[in-house]
């Protein structure tokens, strides 16, 4: 029960499942329904009906709906967007084709460049030019647009991206082009680079603009349909859309800048991990989400996810960095690797076991699903090793065929290498865990950090099952499995703020800090960002954050330095220098005197305040509980199957303690407590696993 408007509902549309989480004054109701690809709104409505029934409430008791979706990503991956054209400065027609002039795979002579969303025949130029300080060198000649307009009409172009050189400093020519285009080609959608990505680097800005233009018509009609369908369902709730940066925004903003919705789904898992980190007061966390097709990792420090300003879409090779088109939007920085339950194991040309990135997905799925899959997968190996209960899988939806899994693992992996099915399954498990652990370590190193000694927050259908194995490979001693880890993303959405981040380029060196220009820029960013957030939250304080991206002249990595509060003056430059040096000293141990410091980008974030979660504690007195059942799993130490205890998570109470090796099962996943670990239920019902001895 609950008051009118008091419920908050989160919906996450994924590739296979649509997850719904309802927060009714602290009471959590969740469900998973199948995604309905032909009309995703159906799945959303099914999920909402299910949770409102489970919670026994009327739709009008829901006051807020938060929606995250992979539709924007899918439209880009599957090339289902609008027929798009591109207009740029005369002399630079090939910004897209030239890109960074690099090949993404050093040893493969036969690679193809990522397929452009716009072909060269739909790239046009106009006479105009700004210089690097935003001054006009060549005024815009409106008549030079005529050939492009003729082509747009003749070719049936639906959406146009405009990206002129240095428009991040002066948008006058782009604005005028938009007016000309709208007048000459009514009905054609126009995206300006100075609106969606006012950042330096013409290739990145052009790709971001094109990405937005490409999905804008589709996302606009989807979001409007969704809004209408919810109203028709009797939901009078305010609708917010999740962005890739981990905040939510209004429907209106989402329709204007849909590129910001790309990868909004996975950000939910990271937000949940942040909340869990704060709840459990752990400052160094690796969020680890392992589903059916991929695993995602995100580093969290002091309850904040690592963030980035770049993302790649439409990769030629999905898991190879640099093979896609860059999109510069605020994102939660995550690494995605092709390692999930459905990842296929095979023997490579070096006679080694290789796992993924090919996946059996959910259809046909692993061999043990009995739905026609013939290639052994990670889930098959987990079944062979005894970690999964064939009779109670996926909420008991279907029976797993263990014999078929054993046969596939034995025939296709064991026999060629001369091993039995168990050792072959152990090999598959070791190699997939190794690749996730390696990705985590290398990703952390890229950020100048390490994962050893941190805490893993495990979510997703397969995360809790593989977490201790990965912890062993990364010198991590603590793992947290939150409640309902299978719908982690949707739960994460519930705690997201309404926020908006703007990033703009204004190149300056501290030796010639131009306070006036910076003050103007930040002033504009502030009013834009706050207006967008205020559209969704009229009342309450906003948290505002101003950041300068600074580095030593010539160095690659930028530090995010906080800009002091108050008016920007000459002294601000001095304070920025001090802040930069303090941060640099802490990270690298020594300064680089005599080298100028440069600032390339500026960011402004406005967000509503979110209440901190109630802190969770591990009770001082713990009870060792006895197993409800026993099952047998493979032990490396003993080199054979051994009998271990199995617990139902729903039977475990706060303060209960389980020593590994053991399994804890729940509807959507299983937690493996490896030997050498113990698991305790804390006051927020998280499973806290800690290392008690260096096990196997």
């Amino acid at each position, binding site marked *: 029960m609950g008051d009118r408007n008091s419920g908050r509902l989160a919906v996450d549309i994924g590739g296979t499942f649509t997850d719904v989480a309802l927060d009714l004054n602290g009471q959590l109701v969740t469900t998973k329904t199948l995604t309905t690809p032909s009309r995703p709104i159906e799945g959303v409505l099914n999920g909402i009906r299910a949770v409102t029934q489970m919670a026994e409430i009327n739709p009008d008791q829901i006051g807020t709906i938060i929606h995250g979706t992979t539709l924007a990503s899918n439209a880009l991956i599957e090339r289902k967007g609008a027929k798009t054209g591109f207009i740029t400065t005369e*002399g*630079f*027609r*090939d910004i897209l*084709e*030239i*890109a960074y*002039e*690099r*090949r993404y795979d*050093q040893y*493969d*002579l*036969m690679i193809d460049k990522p397929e452009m969303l716009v072909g*060269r*025949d739909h790239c046009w130029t106009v006479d105009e030019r700004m*210089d690097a300080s935003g001054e006009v060198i060549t005024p815009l000649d409106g008549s030079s647009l005529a050939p492009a307009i003729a082509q747009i009409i003749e070719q049936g172009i639906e959406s146009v991206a405009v990206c002129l*050189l*240095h428009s991040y400093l002066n948008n006058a020519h782009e604005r005028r082009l938009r007016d000309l285009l709208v007048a000459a080609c009514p009905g054609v959608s126009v995206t300006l680079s100075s609106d969606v990505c006012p950042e*330096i*680097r*013409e290739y*990145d800005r052009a790709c971001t603009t094109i990405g937005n233009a490409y999905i804008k018509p589709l996302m606009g009609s989807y979001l409007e349909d969704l809004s209408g369908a919810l109203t028709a369902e009797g939901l009078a709730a305010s609708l917010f859309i999740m962005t890739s940066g981990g905040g939510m925004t209004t429907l209106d903003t989402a329709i204007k800048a849909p590129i910001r919705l790309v990868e909004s789904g996975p950000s939910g898992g990271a937000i949940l991990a942040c909340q869990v980190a704060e709840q459990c007061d752990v400052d160094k966390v690796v969020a680890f989400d392992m589903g059916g097709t991929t695993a995602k990792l995100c580093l969290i420090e002091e309850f904040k996810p690592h963030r980035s300003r770049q993302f790649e879409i439409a990769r030629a090779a999905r898991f190879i960095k640099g093979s896609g088109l860059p999109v510069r939007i605020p994102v939660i920085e995550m690494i995605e690797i092709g390692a999930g339950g459905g990842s296929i194991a095979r023997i*490579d*040309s*070096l*006679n*080694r*076991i290789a796992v993924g990135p090919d996946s059996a997905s959910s259809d046909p799925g692993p061999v043990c699903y009995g739905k026609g899959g013939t290639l052994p997968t990670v889930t098959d190996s987990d079944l062979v090793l005894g970690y999964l209960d064939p009779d109670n899988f996926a909420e008991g939806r279907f029976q797993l065929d263990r014999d078929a899994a054993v046969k596939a693992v034995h025939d296709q992996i064991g026999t060629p*290498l001369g*091993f*039995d099915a168990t*050792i072959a399954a152990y*090999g598959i498990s*070791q190699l997939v865990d*190794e*690749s996730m652990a*390696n990705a985590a*370590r*290398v990703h952390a*190193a*890229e950020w*100048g950090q*390490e994962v050893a000694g941190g805490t893993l927050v495990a979510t997703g259908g397969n995360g809790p099952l593989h977490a201790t194995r990965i912890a062993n*490979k990364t*010198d991590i001693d603590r793992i947290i499995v939150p409640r309902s880890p299978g719908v982690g993303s949707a739960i994460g959405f519930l705690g997201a703020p309404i926020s908006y981040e703007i990033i703009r380029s204004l*190149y300056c060196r501290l030796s010639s800090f131009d306070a006036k220009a910076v003050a103007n820029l930040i002033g504009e960013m502030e009013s834009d960002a706050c207006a967008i957030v205020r559209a969704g939250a009229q009342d309450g304080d906003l948290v505002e954050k101003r950041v300068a991206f600074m580095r030593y002249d*010539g*160095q*690659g*990595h930028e530090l995010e330095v906080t800009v002091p509060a108050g008016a920007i003056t000459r002294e601000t430059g001095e304070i920025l220098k001090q802040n930069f040096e303090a941060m640099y000293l802490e990270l*690298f141990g*020594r300064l*680089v*005197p005599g*080298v100028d410091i440069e600032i390339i980008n500026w960011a402004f974030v406005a967000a509503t305040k979110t209440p901190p979660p109630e802190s969770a504690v591990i009770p001082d007195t713990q009870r060792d509980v006895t197993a409800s059942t026993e099952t047998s799993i493979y032990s*490396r*130490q003993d*080199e054979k199957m051994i009998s271990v205890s199995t617990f139902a998570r729903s039977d475990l109470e706060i303060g209960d303690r389980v020593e590994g090796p053991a399994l804890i099962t729940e509807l959507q996943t299983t937690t493996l407590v490896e030997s050498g670990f113990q698991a305790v239920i804390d006051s927020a019902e998280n499973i806290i696993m800690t290392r008690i001895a260096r096990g*196997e």
Partner: protein
Amino acid sequence: MAHSKTSSASDIELQVMWNRLQSVVDEQAQALMHTAFSPIVRESGDISAGVFDVKGRMMAQAVTGTPGHINTMAESVKYFTEYFPPDTMRPGDTYLTNDPWLGSGHLNDFVLVQPSFLDDKLVGMVSCTSHLVDLGGLGMGPDGSDVYDEGLLIPPIKLVDAGQMNDTLLTLIKSNSRAPFQNEGDVYALIACCDVASARLTSMMRELQITSLDRVGAYIFDTSRRITEAAIAEVPDGTYQHTMRVDGYDFEIDMVATMKIEGSKLSVDFAGSSPCSRYGINVPLNYSTAYSVFGLRCIFAPEVPNNAGSLGCFEVTAPEEGCILNAPRPAPVAQRHILGQIMPDLMYGCLHQAIPDRIPAEGSSCMYDLPLRGGFEMNKGQGATKYAVEVTHNGGTGARPGKDGLSVAAFPSGVYGAQVEITESVAPLLFRRRELRTDSGGAGKYRGGLGQNIELESRENQPITLFATVDRVKHPALGRDGGLPGAPGVLRLMHSDRMLNSKGKQEIPAGEIFDFRTPGGGGLGDPHERPTGLVAADVRLGIVSPEAAKRDYGVVLMPDGNVDAAKTARLRERIVES
């Protein structure tokens, strides 16, 4: 209790260890990239990292941006073990050299080696390399008359002695550089990178309860060698000789390779190549070997990682005297990469005779580096901004069996092209154009990749100093099997229509526009075999002109852009007959 050493499970774990070693070097490389100062490191990953066994055999190497470190690192650790025998190594030691003949071909590359200890027992070594900004001397230009002109040379020396930093050496390095603090930062970054790798190596050994890397080393070397040898054995035995003529600096240069394939053995010798240049475009053998082997490894089992097993399958030799591809001390070598980057094309010239179906045409290969300066000594204008930038651009790659070449793409180097907006922000330059260069891709059944047209001028109407370091201006990338050559590079003053040299310091006068066109890749196969529809599509996209379609491809187009089938058939027929 340690795991039993020979069970099935421990056999599987050898595969895990191989992956882990690969991850250790990747992590090492990322740590280095994160803190490096040199723009070339940031933009192209001009670094390397490797893990070695106690005998100095390389077990794993990071896949980084540029191939110049491939063999050089594997070899240089062996030199270190001669200077510092393993039984004298102590925990906390780290050694350093930048000797071009022991390290990576020029002074800017620092190579560090650190022994790794598990419970006081030497279990392996880790190594890393990074390109430092400046080491004094004449710097990176090719104008030094010997290596002593090029900067400070450090022989293999203890940088850290049982945990004690060699401050004297660090002071010397700083005192001999225009960028002392960047150098200091880079040296510490290199040490930190070795420390990370040693820590990860021993952590893995503890997790998997092993005390020696011998077993996993043998597994890696045997597997890699076996697969690579099998790939070589597929190629017909024979001796394949190939000569390439390239522009050079003071004289045109012949690069000659004789490749012998006997069963699973492949060796290459450079006898017959031109003698050394008086300028710093000479190549130490370690570096010519690196790019040669890189080119070969792209053909022979590229899926096998670099290690002593896979690299040991290729032998590269050269005459001791008078060979520009085996430059002796103290030849100037600062710009050794110009010829180095052409080595894969030289290898492919040999291999094409043996396996024509698997070999691409020549590409622009040499990166089109553009070091520009203004506001310094030679410029007399008042108020001119002082700047020095080194932006890199590239041409097209050669057409590939079954595929066109890639337009404007770095190969074999992995150096990124610069963004115009960035270049214009850091220097008072104005680019008037940067577009694909129509008709620059060599015609063929498979077309070469296109180069690009760049036009730039001074934003302040000042002269610009150019330090040219490119090739393939006189000698373009050649096609194969009837494919035509790509367009050669062009360095030209637009208003006065004057050509500039491909190498050396030159002035672009105030008010001039510099016309810089990068080369196209060569074509593969008879252009007349290219389907007419593809030629028409290239013309429609503007990457082939209607004139070239007719002249080179024998394809006549109608005013609407469609193929004039009758005229095309007649034209193609006539050419076949004549």
